[in-house]
C-alpha cells in the first residue's frame, strides 16, 4: 500500500469532516428568521428558572462568540475552534449537563448496536447472496430468501415497529424498549450483560432482517459477474472441487466490491439505526437526537450531527484502509 494512497484517504476524511462541520455552521445561517439559537437562548433566559444566573452567563458567552455584531468569518473561526476541541457547549434542555457528556454516554450504545447488527447483516447477507448467485444452490434457498430480498427495500424502523409489536407487545418475549432494565446500574455482571443483550435483540433484529436482503441483492449481482470470469471457468477445468471454487474463487472475489458498497452505505445504515433507536427508545445517539429535536436543544443537535459525521467518516476511512489488504491489485499497484 503506497503512502500516497493513505495520505489521499486521510485527506478525503478531513475534507468530509470539514464539509460536515461547516454545513452545521452555515445551514442555520440560511434560515429566514435570523439566529434560531439566539432566539432559543433568549427564550430560556426569559423563562428564567433555578439556574437563571448560569443561563445568563451562557447567553453572554454565546453572544461574545457568535453575536450578530461579529463578522461571519470570526464566528466561523470561533465555531471551528470549539468543534476541534469537542466543545459543543451545554445542553439547552438538560442544563447543566454538557453536550459532550451526554453524547459520551450515548456513543457506546449506538456503536455497539450498529457494529453488531451491521456485521451480522453483512455476513449473512453476503453469504446468502453468494448462494443465490451460485447455479448449484437448491431452489428451496431461492424460495426461502424471497421475503428477505423484498424486505431489503423497507426502512429499518418500520420493521422495528412490526417486530416490536409481535415479539414485545403481543408475545411479551422480549422487553419493549430501552437499553437495559430501568434502574439497573451498568456493571460487568452476567445479569447486566444478559439484560443488555435482551434489550438489544429486537432493534438489532430489525436492522439485520432488512440488511440481509440488501447485501444479498448486491452480492448476487456480483456473484453472477464473477462466475462469468475466465478464472472461474479455468478453476473448474483444473479439477477443483465446487466447494473450493465457491469460496476461494467466486465468493472471495465478489466480496471485494461488497466492501466498497459497505463504505458507501455507511451513512444510510447509520441514519437507519438512529431511527431504530428512536422507535425502541434505545439510549444511543438516535434517542438523544430525537429528544434534542423535540426540545429545540440546538447545541445538542449540532453535537450529535457532528458525531454522526465523524463516525461515518471514520468508518469509511477504516474500510478504505482495510481494502488494499483484501485486494492485492491495489496493494501492489505500481510500486
Amino acid at each position, binding site marked *: 500500500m*503506497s503512502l*500516497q*494512497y493513505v495520505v*489521499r*484517504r486521510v*485527506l*478525503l476524511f478531513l475534507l468530509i469532516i470539514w464539509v460536515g462541520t461547516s454545513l452545521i455552521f452555515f445551514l442555520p445561517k440560511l434560515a429566514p428568521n435570523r439566529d434560531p439559537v439566539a432566539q432559543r437562548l433568549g427564550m430560556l433566559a426569559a423563562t428564567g428558572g433555578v439556574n437563571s444566573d448560569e443561563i445568563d452567563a451562557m447567553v453572554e458567552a454565546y453572544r461574545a462568540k457568535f453575536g450578530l455584531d461579529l463578522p461571519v468569518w470570526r464566528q466561523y473561526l470561533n465555531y471551528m475552534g470549539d468543534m476541534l476541541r469537542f466543545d459543543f457547549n451545554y445542553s439547552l434542555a438538560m442544563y447543566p449537563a454538557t453536550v459532550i457528556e451526554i453524547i459520551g454516554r450515548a456513543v457506546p450504545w449506538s456503536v455497539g448496536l450498529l457494529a453488531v447488527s451491521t456485521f451480522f447483516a453483512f455476513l449473512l447477507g453476503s453469504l446468502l447472496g453468494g448462494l443465490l448467485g451460485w447455479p448449484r444452490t437448491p431452489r428451496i434457498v431461492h424460495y426461502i430468501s424471497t421475503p428477505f430480498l423484498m424486505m431489503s427495500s423497507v426502512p429499518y424502523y418500520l420493521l422495528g415497529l412490526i417486530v416490536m409489536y409481535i415479539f414485545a407487545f403481543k408475545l411479551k418475549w422480549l422487553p419493549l424498549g430501552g437499553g437495559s432494565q430501568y434502574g439497573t446500574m451498568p456493571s460487568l455482571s452476567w445479569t447486566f450483560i444478559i439484560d443488555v443483550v435482551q434489550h438489544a435483540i429486537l432493534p438489532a433484529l430489525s436492522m439485520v432482517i432488512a440488511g440481509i436482503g440488501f447485501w444479498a441483492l448486491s452480492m448476487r449481482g456480483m456473484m453472477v459477474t464473477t462466475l462469468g470470469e475466465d478464472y472461474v471457468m479455468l478453476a473448474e477445468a483444473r479439477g477443483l472441487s465446487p466447494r473450493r471454487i465457491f469460496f476461494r474463487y467466486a465468493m472471495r472475489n465478489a466480496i471485494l466490491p461488497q466492501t466498497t458498497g459497505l463504505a458507501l452505505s455507511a451513512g444510510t445504515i447509520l441514519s437507519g439505526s438512529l431511527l431504530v433507536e428512536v422507535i425502541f427508545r434505545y439510549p444511543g445517539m438516535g434517542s438523544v437526537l430525537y429528544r434534542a429535536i423535540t426540545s429545540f436543544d440546538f447545541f445538542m443537535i449540532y453535537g450529535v450531527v457532528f458525531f454522526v459525521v465523524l463516525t461515518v467518516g471514520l468508518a469509511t476511512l477504516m474500510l*478504505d484502509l482495510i481494502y488494499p489488504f483484501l485486494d492485492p491489485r491495489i496493494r501492489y*499497484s*505500481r510500486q
Partner: protein
Amino acid sequence: MTTPLLEARNVTKIFSSRGSIGKKGSVTVAVNQASLTIHADPPSIVAIAGESGSGKTTLSRLLLGLVSPTSGDVFYRGRPMTALKGDERMAFRRDVQAIFQDPFEVYNPFYRVDHALEMPIKRFEPTKSADERRAMIEKALGVVGLRVDETLGRYPHQLSGGQRQRVMVARALMLNPSIIVADEPVSMVDASLRATILESLLNAHDQLAIAIIYITHDLTTAYQVCTSILMMYSGAMVEVGNVDRVIKDPLHPYTQLLVGSIPLPDPTKRWAANVRSATSASGQHSTSQGCSFAPRCPHVMDICREVTPPLFRVNADRAVACYLYRDAPVVSPEDVSALYIGA
C-alpha cells in the same frame, strides 16, 4: 510539391492517468517524436505496423484528430489541426475517414445499422432529402457488395462480423473522403471474409484515388495491401520504406525478429528453431534515453543505450533507426515521406 493531405511533425503523445483520490497516476509515452506525411496526389497507401503497445493506434487517432498531441503538430492540408474551426473542421471531418478494428463496437447498439449510415449524411449534407440519403446509402452498399435488403433495417447483432465491417467500409466510401485510416480492419473478421474487405480498400485506392493508411500487426496483409510500410516499436519509427524490401530483407533487428516470428501458413516453412535473435520482452521498461529496443537487441552497443538513433537512409527507398547503419546519411523528419511516396 503539393501540400500534403495529412502531416504529423515530431508528434509525441503522453498518456498520464491523473490519479483521482486514492489512485496513483502513471505516465505512458505512446508516440515518441513521430513524423509522417500522407499525400492525396498521387494518393499514398502506407502501412503502419507494430505490435500492441507500439503506438500505431495512437498515431492513427492523432491523425484522425480524435486525440491531440502532447507536443508536435498535425497538419491537414497545411493547416494545423488545432486551428480548424467551423466549416473547415467539418470539411476535415468528412475528408478524413476511418475504419476501426471491432466491427461490433462501432455500432451504437440502440440503433439499427441504418443510423451509422444516415448520421454522417445528415451532418455533412443537411440539405439532402430522405430519398436522396437512401439513394446514397444503397449505392455505397452496392460498392462493397452488400444487398440492401440483407443489411438495412437490421440491428448490428443481426449481421455477421464480415457484413458489419463491410457496412463500415461503405460508410467511409460514401463520404468521398481523400483518405481512409483503417485500424486493424480485418483482425476481428473471419479469414474467409477478410479478402473482400481488403479488396474493397485496395479498389478504393486504385479506382477512387483515396489515400489509405493501413494500421496492422499482421505483416502479411500489410505486404499484400500496401506499397510502403512504417515499422513502429515503443512509440518510435524503427524502419521505413518500400514494403517488399522491409519484409523480404529486414534491416532493423526488431523488424528481423518480427518477420522471423510470423507463423507462415506453410507446413514446409516452419520456424527455424535456431534463429532466436532477441530475448523476450519480459516486462522490462524501455528507458527514456537511447533506443527503446536496446534491452532486447542482440547487437546492442554502448551508444544504443545513450542516444536515441535517428533514421539512417540506407538506400533510396529505405531508412532504419539503428546504429548498425550509422554510416548512412541521417534523414530529417521532413524528408521521411520521400522514402515511401510514389514508391
